[in-house]
């Protein structure tokens, strides 16, 4: 088990190096001069040169990369060109917010998507199945921002049940934190629930046809035991993979929802950084996202490993 995790981590290292090189060079190729962005109204050549010199923008690109990568290894992602805060500090502030949002969204997606998927597979071809599929398709088709705005209008403006925006850390006031996050998490979660439901349904349809499910029935087991213990247990593997992908997407993909609910999260940080050409922040954030993706997939692999006895004996 431990050797398996170590091996997975070893594979992750070259991936990370490639990703870091890619984001670094891509950014240099993109149009727009950070020195110009920083200088603002000052277009004085000496001022620009001073800025370039200060931020080592004149050095060869590989030197710039090595300097940055070396720092990153030591946990130093540079300093925001715009706010002069260390990038790690910015990330440290914003990332937990987005993680909280993502976890809550995934939980909501699980609560809705998995039972719906299991039921619609078991009741394939019935009215329930059709309705569940229509609901899922609607969930996929309705844009997050629209649902978000509608929810704010209904729940916050008209009913006044929940705050429309803002953020409170769960460590300061858990209940208040839940209140502010439940709507954005719901918006993100329902969209994921639709995807999750479709995947659960097709995975379940596959295993429900399996010979061992027929064996389970031939043992006289009740239908619930057959479906949950014998079928769903084997349908979990593709669901785990799917969940990891969805969670990774949430880390970087909650941008619009964060904007609508004015949540000071990771998505907002990226958008602001890109607009102001805040190189150090963009690089740091993208690198951090890549690490997040790799970690999530590692966790998914470990769960996969625990769920699948066949893999355990291969290793």
């Amino acid at each position: 088990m431990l050797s398996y995790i170590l091996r997975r981590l070893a594979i992750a290292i070259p991936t990370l190096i490639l990703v870091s090189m890619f984001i670094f060079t891509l950014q240099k190729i993109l149009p727009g001069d950070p020195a110009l962005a920083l200088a603002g109204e000052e277009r004085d050549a000496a001022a620009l040169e001073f800025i370039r010199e200060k931020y080592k923008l004149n050095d060869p690109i590989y030197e710039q990369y090595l300097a940055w990568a070396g720092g990153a290894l030591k946990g130093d992602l540079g300093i925001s060109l715009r706010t002069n805060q260390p990038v790690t500090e910015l990330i440290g502030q914003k990332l937990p917010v987005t993680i909280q949002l993502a976890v809550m969204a995934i939980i909501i997606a699980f609560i809705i998507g998995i039972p719906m998927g299991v039921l619609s597979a078991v009741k394939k071809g019935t009215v329930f199945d059709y309705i569940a599929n229509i609901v899922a398709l609607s969930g996929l088709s309705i844009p997050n921002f629209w649902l978000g705005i509608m929810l704010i209008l209904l729940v916050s403006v008209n009913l006044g049940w929940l705050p429309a925006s803002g953020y409170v850390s769960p460590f300061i006031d858990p209940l208040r934190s839940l209140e502010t996050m439940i709507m954005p998490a719901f918006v993100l979660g329902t969209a994921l629930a639709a995807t999750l439901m479709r995947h659960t349904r097709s995975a379940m349809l596959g295993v429900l046809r399996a010979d061992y499910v027929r064996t389970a029935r031939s043992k006289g087991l009740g239908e619930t035991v057959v479906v949950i213990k014998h079928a769903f247990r084997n349908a979990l593997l593709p669901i785990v993979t799917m969940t990891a992908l969805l969670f990774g997407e949430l880390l970087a993909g909650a941008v619009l929802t964060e904007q609508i609910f004015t949540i000071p999260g990771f998505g907002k940080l990226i958008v602001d950084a890109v607009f102001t050409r805040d190189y150090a922040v963009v690089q740091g954030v993208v690198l951090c996202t890549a690490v997040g993706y790799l970690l999530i997939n590692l966790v998914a692999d470990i769960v996969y490993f625990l769920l699948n006895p066949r893999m355990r004996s291969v290793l």
Partner: protein
Amino acid sequence: MHSDADSNPSPLLAVDNLTLRFSSASGNVVDGVSFSVSPGETLCIVGESGCGKSVTALSLMGLLPMPPAQITAGSAMFDGKDLLRMPRREMAAIRGNRMAMIFQEPMTSLNPAYRIGDQIAEVVLRHRPVTRKQARARALEMLDRVKIPAAVKRLDDYPHQLSGGMRQRVMIAMALANDPALLIADEPTTALDVTIQAQILQLIRTLQEETGTALIMITHDLGVVAEVGDRVAVMYAGRIVEQGSVDDVFIDPQHPYTLGLMSSIPSLSKREGRLTTIPGMVPTVDTMPPGCRFAPRCPFAGAECKAAVPPLTDLSPGHAAACIRAPLEAEAHFDGAVA
């Protein structure tokens, strides 16, 4: 329950006029099938693939998905109750308990996620008032009885750690764990290597003798019938065309289809000539001919064969065939049908 079985063998299972169809097809997949099994007896149901033998077995176990399958007529009396009209819950109480089944595909019939010991113990726990520990002990005992070496260690193996033959032994252990009165084996050796086939058949026979369970053996292999069967029912295109003791049917086959099946077995004594085959194909459910369903392939068929369904008629006590030409003349054989 059947204490009078010795003096007057009342059947354990009596299937009468079982008729079932799939909603997608126009004809009946199983058409008026009747047979019975006495306690401790082995009935072989033999026929080509698609003749309805597996569907018959699954319908008795209540394992046919309905829909699309639909039982349109018939009854199957087991322990004095009709299996075909039994409430789901009552059926589940019998399955794996009073009657059990083993399947054709040992490779995929065990759940890959659970240890085999737990899978056997599960069926014991389901039907008996025992503790987990007792159920596990029973699982171990069963693994021993199906001759799995080092059973104690194997108890915690996952299915993928076992070979096909071993997995089929586990399936047998699971099926017999609650001492069923009836075991249905659906082509239990077809997916196995030839050497393993013989071992598994031998094992089933030994266990049957030890436990006194009745056995319905479904097979396409007349060799298996000769090996294990007391009686045999020959199925063709959803109907039983001949039924009788294995000796009667093998020595004196009375339906042209049975005759054809016999001639299809390569024999060591008649080495000359080509292997005999039955010309034509088994009709599909949608293209069932009227009258005798074998008539289009039968060398003895006449116009009258296509007019009406020949009934299964007793030719001698316990030996019946569904052919208007029966009894066939002693020298009748399938030469006219060499492909």
